[in-house]
């Protein structure tokens, strides 16, 4: 399938500040995309460029192959769900959802059918005559989604739409958004700073930092193979330790050599080693590959969050199902595939090429 939206070297500058730096991205139809990054990373700016509220200072934005840099928002086949919902307070639910159709001069019968369909989709059947001020935050959120979808966009842009909802409602809306996207089969582009949300919902994630796309890939790729310190730290909790890649499949850190599954680097190249807290098992001192002293633990419902330090005073985060004793010395065990290696200053293209190369090597060996 061809791309529905493409960014080719899109940059945006306000005076001297570079908000976006030469962004290249490709959006394919029918997928759920997430732009993930801390606030100020430029993710909402990308969304506003797609919606037409901003125009790029350089580069081209293409929609189905056509350049749309200066096409105004009302002429684009995309619709937006705004962070604060932006529902019209003087109109009731029905008129809000029908707004786009009223503008286009659709017949009352056509409008009524579509509004009913949309309200059913977001589980607000019969709410047509309600005023916006009478709805809860979660219901307003649903109306905003119904209003945007009633315009039958080819791409739906969602700008941190769940950030104002409480935890439980947010989880529920995540599932619902995902199922709405799959049912309608249109493209969703979702902006969030919540990595859990991004991992749970997306087909494809763009991780952004400082006006650049740092890494993009499927949730599993990004979680398992973070490209650098920033991504590893931002996506989930990580233990990051400096190390040296002695040769393929052998890494040295904390003064010891460990077998691992990464390769394709120079011999004795300095690297960063990532170990995820949930990949670490607490075992007896003798059985452990590393020895740590437990500092603290807190109960998180489905697991214990344990912090510890090793003899070189590196901090470790461990997730365990069973409680431990504070002050106790314990061993840490992990498998070779739990060790993730990040090269210093590797860009995305080189990273992808190396991963590809090394996967091919691995297949050749098998």
């Amino acid at each position: 399938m061809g791309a529905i939206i493409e960014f080719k070297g899109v940059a945006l500058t306000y005076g001297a500040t570079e908000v976006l730096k030469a962004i290249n991205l490709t959006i394919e139809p029918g997928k759920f995309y997430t732009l993930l990054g801390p606030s100020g990373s430029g993710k909402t700016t990308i969304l506003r460029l797609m919606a037409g509220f901003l125009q790029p200072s350089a580069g081209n934005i293409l929609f189905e192959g056509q350049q749309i840099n200066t096409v105004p928002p009302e002429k684009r086949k995309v619709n937006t769900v705004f962070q604060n919902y932006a529902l019209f307070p003087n109109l009731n639910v029905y008129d809000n959802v029908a707004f786009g159709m009223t503008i286009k001069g659709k017949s009352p019968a056509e409008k009524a059918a579509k509004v009913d369909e949309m309200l059913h989709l977001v589980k607000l059947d019969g709410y047509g005559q309600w005023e916006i001020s009478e709805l809860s935050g979660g219901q307003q959120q649903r109306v905003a989604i119904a209003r945007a979808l009633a315009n039958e966009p080819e791409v739906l842009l969602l700008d941190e739409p769940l950030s104002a909802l409480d935890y439980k409602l947010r989880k529920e809306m995540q599932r619902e958004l995902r199922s709405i996207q799959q049912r309608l089969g249109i493209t969703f582009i979702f902006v969030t700073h919540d990595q859990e949300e991004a991992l749970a919902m997306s087909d494809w994630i763009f991780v952004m930092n400082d006006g650049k796309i740092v890494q993009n890939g499927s949730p599993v790729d990004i979680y398992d193979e973070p490209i650098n310190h920033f991504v590893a730290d931002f996506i989930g909790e990580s233990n990051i330790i400096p190390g040296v890649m002695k040769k393929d499949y052998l890494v040295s850190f904390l003064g010891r050599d460990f077998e691992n599954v990464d390769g394709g680097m120079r011999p004795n190249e300095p690297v960063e080693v990532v170990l995820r807290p949930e990949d670490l098992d607490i075992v007896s001192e003798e059985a452990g590959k590393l020895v740590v002293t437990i500092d603290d633990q807190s109960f998180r419902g489905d697991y214990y969050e344990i912090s510890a330090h090793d003899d070189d005073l590196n901090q470790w985060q461990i997730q365990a199902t069973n409680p431990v004793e504070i002050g106790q010395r314990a061993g840490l065990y992990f498998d070779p595939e739990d060790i993730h290696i990040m090269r210093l200053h590797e860009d995305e293209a080189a990273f992808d090429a190396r991963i590809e190369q090394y996967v091919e090597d691995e297949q050749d060996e098998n």
Partner: protein
Amino acid sequence: MQSERFKAPWLKLYLALVFILMYLPIAYLIIYSFNRGATMTAFTGFSWQHYLDMFNDLRLMQILVNTLIIALLSALLATIIGTFGALLIYQMKRTGIKNIFLSLNNILLVSPDVIIGASFLILFTMVGFQLGFGSVLMAHIAFSIPIVVLMVLPRFHDMDTTLIDAAYDLGANRWQVLSRVILPYAWPGILAGFFMAITYSLDDFAVTFFVTGNGFSTLSVEIYSRARQGVDLSINALSALLFVLSLMLVVVYYFIATGVATRSSKKAGHGQLKVVDPQ
């Protein structure tokens, strides 16, 4: 604490005194409009005589109609001009220029009526404009515009700008954004501005006094000139009538203003009976 303090009996007394002080002259005026005698020296019995005199005074009735027409027409035009003026000030990007315009607006609001009236008189005579209905109307529109701007502008500033983004996003053009989103949002302010403009026009004396010609007059000017010639109780009757009229204006405004607010809750309440919350 707050409510406790307001229950203090001397506070109620204070409030009562203030209101008595404010309404005593008006009450005195109205009571004597029903006097059988021809002066305000003593109340000699009840009579509708002064009201009959007033309604039979065709000149006075003509002036009453003039006054109402001027008030409604000037308020309407001032509201339209003032609302769009407020919109332009709202859309100004440079705060310096915005503040200059706002200050110019507010200066008109606080400057003495005598000065505004005198300057209008000079202007109209300089350009050779015939004094009369047109000059009074223009003067009233001019001094009503600043108050409309002042009532409407806060509503624009109050509005979330993503509403405008959302309207564009859903396919609205500039005119549709204005007519379907911005103006409905500012409607309570526009309405308040309109009613304020009516009251400003109705009770204006100073400006009108300068710009009325020979053949045209409004109530305030007419009452003033009659009061100078000697006390006539039909003026009391007219004052009573105007008082009732302004009371009605307040009531009408109250119902329109609360109507805008309660319309929503009534409808929603209606819905609540039929609809089961899915959550």
